[in-house]
């Protein structure tokens, strides 16, 4: 039954239509109010952060209000956009001219098209749910007002990122999001580990931003401007070398923000932040910014094949790394973070496959947004119940105590491992298809990834909700209050319905994004049905293995010594160790030696000349004996020299 659906989709696919075909038209009517989307949360953040003590009591309501208002505005815009024709859905809103320096002119303007519309809905939708959730979660925290201020700041920055129509304005949103994640990770500042994690996240993001800055600079060098329409229009004019360079720089930026392979070390430490933060920022929205950037720059990547292969390679590596790390983590949030990393690996891989994969990447991104947020919030309510106990070794058999959380968590679990009716199946399956269509090795990686995902997710489910009770604290875990479970339920429904809903009912996601990203279909190396069965078999195999190791045997409360792979996975496949050895230690050593050189060398040279002059003058001083007669000798010598000089000058 499912195969008919997919064949229908492929049949309706138009021929490979070049992305960005639709010209953005000046926004009129309701679209000219798009800037309100950003204004609401920004205003909310300003009120909350500058408000001071007075807004404490009503702080969280303002925060939620702003986010929900923005969501409502998003839905209104979505409805209006549906009314437009399929290919005239791109609108630019010109706000004000940012600056014009030496021929480089940038306007603060927004671009609302299908791609950014999807993102807006995801961000504001999931964002509002998480706002509501965190009312309950952060109830007893006295800095809650500041928390909601930062959340609003994040939503505003993320919206600016997805709505910007110029790479530089996007970069402002990009860094704003980095700042918000720094503030939110390090929200509990009294914990030194949180502060270190926040700093690490910001610095690694900053390394990625280096790539972005260089990308925009090269755009300026090559195209003379960094506006989307100029860059995409004249992309084919530039030399492939340049376009590849821009592609690679953008990839570096994306890796920084989406915790992809070279710059992935910060994501697992980012779990220090409160759970709603992990859910919103490090699962649903911010980490997907990198994918958005690659999909948005489709025009560039289409012209730079090796940049695309680089994206695929990075995606594949992160996919596998994340999955392996996910298997070995006992901390529930770190396990979920590992799974996030691998799912984003999927999306990057899909985005790297070119026009064929863009739509599926975004589709997976949306569904992932739903079920990963659901899983994280579920984990949050588990921790809330277990009085902030994080390690799964202390859980076990919670399904009786926390039924609602269990059910919603199960929905997310089934969605992520890709069981047919659930959302994950449709989006991840499409990516595996596209991967196999592209080439074998990538296909195998995605398949392997799906298997391992099934393994660690089942492990997580079993250790948390089934098996023997390993609780340590006195009173039994209690179910979270309704203000937390309601968003859980909504997200659970979304992660169930989201899959086929977006693909088949109403506006098909692929057709919806086609004008922006274009569409292309390669033929599959093997029949579709066979591929789908293989994926299902691998997934079930993963579940069985996990059930064998964790289901039947009782889970040990202490941490068992694992083999080499598990130990490596426990410390993030030595990602941190590598950074430490290659960058941190030499960096510190370089700094210390430079400080030494500065005090001795440069400063020494300057002070040295001063003391040298001093020494010289003491020697000269000894020459002045005070005796009149030694002065007389000098005078006579002087007379001799003068007479000699006059002679030498005069003597013919």
């Amino acid at each position, binding site marked *: 039954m499912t195969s008919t659906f997919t064949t229908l989709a492929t049949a309706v696919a138009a021929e490979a239509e070049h992305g960005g075909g639709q010209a953005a038209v000046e926004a009129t009517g309701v679209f000219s109010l798009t800037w309100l989307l950003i204004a609401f949360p920004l205003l909310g953040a300003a009120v909350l952060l500058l408000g001071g003590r007075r807004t404490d009591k009503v702080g969280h309501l303002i925060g939620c209000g702003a986010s929900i208002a923005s969501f409502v505005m998003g839905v209104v815009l979505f409805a209006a956009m549906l009314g437009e024709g399929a290919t005239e859905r791109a609108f630019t809103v010109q706000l004000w001219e940012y600056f014009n320096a030496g021929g480089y002119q940038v306007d603060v303007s927004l671009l609302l098209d299908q791609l950014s519309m999807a993102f807006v809905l995801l961000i504001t939708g999931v964002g509002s749910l998480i706002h509501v959730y965190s009312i309950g979660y952060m109830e007893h925290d006295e800095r809650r007002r500041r928390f909601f201020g930062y959340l609003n700041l994040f939503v505003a920055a993320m919206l600016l990122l997805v709505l910007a129509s110029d790479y530089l304005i996007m970069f402002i949103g990009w860094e704003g999001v980095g700042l918000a994640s720094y503030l939110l990770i390090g929200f509990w500042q009294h914990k030194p580990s949180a502060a270190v994690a926040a700093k690490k996240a910001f610095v690694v993001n900053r390394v990625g931003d280096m790539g972005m800055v260089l990308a925009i600079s090269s755009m300026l060098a090559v195209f003379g401007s960094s506006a989307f329409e100029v860059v995409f229009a004249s992309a084919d004019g530039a030399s492939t070398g340049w376009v590849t360079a821009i592609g690679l720089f953008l990839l570096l930026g994306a890796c920084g923000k989406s915790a992809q392979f070279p710059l992935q070390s910060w994501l697992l430490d980012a779990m220090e932040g409160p759970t709603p933060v992990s859910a919103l920022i490090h699962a649903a929205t911010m980490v997907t910014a990198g994918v958005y950037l690659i999909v948005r720059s489709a025009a560039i990547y289409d012209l730079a094949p090796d940049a695309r292969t680089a994206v695929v390679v990075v995606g594949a590596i992160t996919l596998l790394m994340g999955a392996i790390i996910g298997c070995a983590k006992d901390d529930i949030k770190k396990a979920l973070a590992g799974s996030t990393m691998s799912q984003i690996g999927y999306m990057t891989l899909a985005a790297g496959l070119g026009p064929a994969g863009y739509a599926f990447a975004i589709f997976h991104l949306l569904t992932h947004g739903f079920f990963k947020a659901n899983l994280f919030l579920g984990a949050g309510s588990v921790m809330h119940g277990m009085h902030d106990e994080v390690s799964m070794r202390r859980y076990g058999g919670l399904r009786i105590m926390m039924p609602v959380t269990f059910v919603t968590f199960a929905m997310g679990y089934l969605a992520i491992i890709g069981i047919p009716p659930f959302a994950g199946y449709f989006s991840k399956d499409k990516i595996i298809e596209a991967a196999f269509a592209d080439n074998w090795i990538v296909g195998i990686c995605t398949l392997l990834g799906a298997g391992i995902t099934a393994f660690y997710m089942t492990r997580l489910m079993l250790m948390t909700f089934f098996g023997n009770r390993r609780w340590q604290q006195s009173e039994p875990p209690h179910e979270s209050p309704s203000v937390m479970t309601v968003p859980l339920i909504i997200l659970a429904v979304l992660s169930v319905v989201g899959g086929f809903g977006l693909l088949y009912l109403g506006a098909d996601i692929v057709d919806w994004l086609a004008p922006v990203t274009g569409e292309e279909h390669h033929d599959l190396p093997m029949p579709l049905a066979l591929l789908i069965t293989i994926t299902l078999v691998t997934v079930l195999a993963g579940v069985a293995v996990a059930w064998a190791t964790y289901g039947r045997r009782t889970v040990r409360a202490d941490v068992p010594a694992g083999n080499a792979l598990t130990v490596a996975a426990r410390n993030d496949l030595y990602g941190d160790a590598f950074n430490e050895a290659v960058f941190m230690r030499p960096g510190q050593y370089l700094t210390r030696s430079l400080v030494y050189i500065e005090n001795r060398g440069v400063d020494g040279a300057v002070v040295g000349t001063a003391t040298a002059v001093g020494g010289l003058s003491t020697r000269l001083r000894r020459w002045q*004996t005070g*005796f009149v*007669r*030694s002065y007389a*000798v000098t005078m*006579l*010598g002087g*007379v*001799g020299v003068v*007479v*000699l000089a006059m*002679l030498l000058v005069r003597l013919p």
Partner: protein
Amino acid sequence: MGEEVLFWVMSPFAVLGALGLVFARKAVHGALSLAVTMITLAVFYIAQEAPFLGVVQVVVYTGAIMMLFLFVIMLVGVESSDSRVETIRGQRGSAALAVLGVVLLLTTVTVRATLPDEPTGMAQATPDGNVAGIADLIFGTYVWAFEVVAALLITAAVGAMTLTHRERIFHRPSQRDQAIRRFREGRPEDAAGLPVPGVYARHNAVDTPALLPDGTPSEASINRVLVARGAARSSEEFSHRPTPGDIEAGTSETLSSAEGADQPEGETDEPAAAAPELGGDDDATGGERA
């Protein structure tokens, strides 16, 4: 022709005079030998058709300035004789070097300079005599220099005056004060004032020491300059010599107190031996210092 003879006769005197100045131990001898050099130079001036300068040399330079020197030497450094030992390290060596250098330099210059054998002589330049010529110049072209030099001399004189004038910053003790001080602070034996030179019985010359009541000559009565110069007559010839009468009285005394006898005896001889040797006491100027 006579001039060369004159030159070769007189020039050794000049050089010897100069050497005498440098190598004389006592300043006075140096001053005199310098006077000799100056006079030979005066003769040379006159030989070189500069009679006015020759006379001025003798009158002003030798006559006034050298005498001023002698006067100051008397006042200040009559007994300061230098020792040959050089105190500043490396002074002699560098001095010799510098002087030799300058001498070589100047002599090569003068020897190599092509000078006319016969000087043009002053006849043509001084139609109505040397003095009139010089007078024209002084009060003609160089009158400005003349005025300035006059001012210079006056300032020099005033300068010397202020330098040597000693402001009495303390009350000058009058004779009455000294007398009071002598009784209050001085030693009892010289309370009656210092003895005046000369032994009235037979001598009142200034170079003869006065005798104290106990017969010993008093050092303080002789001007130390005379002592420095060695012109003071030794005192033992005046010390109370036992006359025959004394001897009898003395011997009769010795018979009575054996040991007492040599006491006065010793006392009278001893001062004689202790007569102050020549050489400065408190005011030795320039005594050799190690």
